[in-house]
């Protein structure tokens, strides 16, 4: 490689490293702002802005969905399997909404309702689907295997007792 080409190669590498570094520093400074949502754990840790709109994401807790009889209002719990926050939403839910589904809700934490805990009043609920793609029979087989396994563990536990 001629010295001239070597210099140009170094220049190109400098451009890549320099712009990469600039972007990395910028992204680090903005890390919290680039987060699309907070988890219930983040909210309990006080990361949620008070009285302002933010996004809360997690799984819809099992057996937590309750619909008001007179309208479109739904109450459900969002959980990250550690902390849980109750959400109230009025409107049409996306197709993928169901218990156990990951969702992102936009809204505000609002004062104390009957049970003494702050509720998350959602203006918008989006479903977050996962990266797994498989036909339904496979899913059935997986569920079945899990059940069989759970029974086995239970049986083994009973034996040792």
């Amino acid at each position, binding site marked *: 490689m001629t010295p001239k*080409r070597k210099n*140009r190669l170094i220049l190109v590498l400098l451009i890549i490293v320099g712009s990469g570094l600039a972007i990395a520093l910028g992204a680090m400074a903005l890390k919290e702002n680039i987060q*699309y949502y907070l988890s219930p754990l983040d909210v309990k840790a006080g990361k949620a802005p008070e009285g302002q709109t933010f996004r809360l994401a997690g799984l819809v807790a099992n057996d937590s969905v309750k619909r008001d009889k007179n309208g479109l209002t739904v109450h459900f719990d969002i959980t990250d399997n550690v902390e849980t926050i109750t959400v109230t939403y009025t409107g049409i839910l*996306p197709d993928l909404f169901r218990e156990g589904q990951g969702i*992102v809700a936009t809204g505000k934490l609002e004062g104390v309702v009957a049970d003494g805990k702050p509720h998350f009043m959602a203006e*918008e609920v989006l479903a*977050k*689907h*996962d990266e797994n*793609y498989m036909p339904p029979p496979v899913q059935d087989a997986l569920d079945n295997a899990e059940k069989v396994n759970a029974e086995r563990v239970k049986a083994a536990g009973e034996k040792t007792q």
Partner: protein
Amino acid sequence: MIKAIIAFLVKVFYQLASPKHFYRIAGKLIPWFGWFAAVLLIAGSIDGLFIAPVDYQQGDSYRIIFIHVPAAWMSMFIYMVMATSGAIALIWKIKLADVIASSSAPIGAAFTFLALVTGSIWGKPMWGTWWVWDARLTSELILLFLYLGYMALESAIEDPRAAARACAILAIVGVVNIPIIHYSVEWWNTLHQGATVSKMDKPSIHLSMLIPLLLMAVGFKLYYAAAVLSRARNKVLLTEQNRTWVKEVVGLESGVKHG
């Protein structure tokens, strides 16, 4: 032995870099790439739309991944080609590298646009929204603007050599965005789901769905190869129009047509 192979590869490289040989070799390759692309795209579409099973969660709607995912991969791949060509053009002053980069830009922009539009059409029923400003969607939109900026910059500078150099630098600076797009779903919380295929772990997609996805992905790649080579061939003819070999080629081809 190894030295001989390297010497041979260097010879091939320099031959390809000469516009005259490039024009001839590309002309022979294009029909192969084009026909294989057509076969794979037709096979992949039939497999993806009719044979692959429905998804356990999304039903039939997931089938848009057979367009969306290969288009998104291509949007990043083509940008990498442009940045690499830009670097080669800057360092070794090979004009053909500039031609490849500038021929790639509109194709890359089209794939990026396709990825954004199909994602949006998918997002409305699945997520409940056409668009969100999360890290993955935003960085892919920036990629579209990089492509458009590249094309605007190229046509804004009159001197073709100055334009090529400015564009090469833009392509190299913009390459920072590629890892950001790829890792955005890991580095930040996003509404977009994580990687399914392109990760260290085993792909989290059933084999019966993975096969049409890969058929489409390879089909898109071959289509790009055919398209970029045809565009580059035209550009080479334009930029070399005063050379005798171009006059021979053009004279010969029109002679065949009229004869």
